[in-house]
């Protein structure tokens, strides 16, 4: 017990020193933008249920300028309930919001487009159903050359 604790501490100290050494290069700890706020605004403060949304992106994008993206809601939607909107956010882009799809009762809840990604990150999609529930999914993508200019 004592030994295990000390080993964990030693490891944590090592990681800390490593992160400090790399400074701002230590990536995952921070997000560049306010994507969490954007999601909150979209859901009205509700926490979306994970799952039910299929988010498709390539695993690796050599060019962040044009990355194919597909979203679909495949989770259970009850009788008469349809998908109203899907918001896509990118935590490591200069601006969090990427696109907001709006559907109608005659829509099939899926859409595709091409987006720009500035860096390697976890892209997130949040779906809003007509009964006020929210589903979400996120997907990691590696970006070789960022595509947001600047």
């Amino acid at each position, binding site marked *: 017990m004592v030994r295990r604790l000390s080993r964990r501490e030693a490891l944590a100290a090592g990681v800390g020193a490593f992160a400090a050494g790399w400074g701002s290069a230590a990536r995952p700890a921070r997000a560049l933008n306010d994507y969490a706020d954007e999601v909150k605004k979209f859901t009205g403060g509700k926490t979306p249920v994970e799952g039910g949304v299929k988010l498709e992106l390539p695993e690796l994008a050599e060019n962040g300028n044009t990355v194919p993206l597909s979203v679909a809601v495949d989770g259970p939607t009850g009788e008469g309930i349809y998908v109203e909107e899907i918001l896509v956010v990118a935590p490591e882009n200069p601006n969090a919001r990427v*696109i*907001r799809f*709006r559907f109608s009762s005659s829509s099939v809840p899926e859409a595709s487009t091409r987006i720009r990604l500035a860096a390697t990150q976890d892209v997130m999609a949040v779906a809003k159903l007509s009964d006020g529930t929210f589903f979400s999914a996120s997907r990691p993508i590696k970006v070789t050359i960022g595509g947001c200019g600047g």
Partner: protein
Amino acid sequence: MAEQAKPRIRLSKKEVRKGETIDVKTLVSHIMETGLRKDASGKLIPRMIINTFSCELNGKFVFGCDLESAVSANPYFEFKFKPTESGVLKFTWIDDAGARTEATETITVT
């Protein structure tokens, strides 16, 4: 605003039976300037993007989206819907300068 090229629209079918799905692909040419890039003298190039797209059937909303600068140049969309009536599909793109690009397609539902 430069003269816009004609948008390209492809429907999987133009005649469907009720309950069948039409797959729509659209492509419009637009620079989608992010507002984050700088020109040679270091000045920011102002944002100029298409910010809204919508598709209506006989004036009734079918599908649309709000675009941000993270949508690639020459925005492409693919979406699906089940039309309930015959009529005219109207596609509209609006950019930051208020310039509208419009296109129509006629579909038949039997």
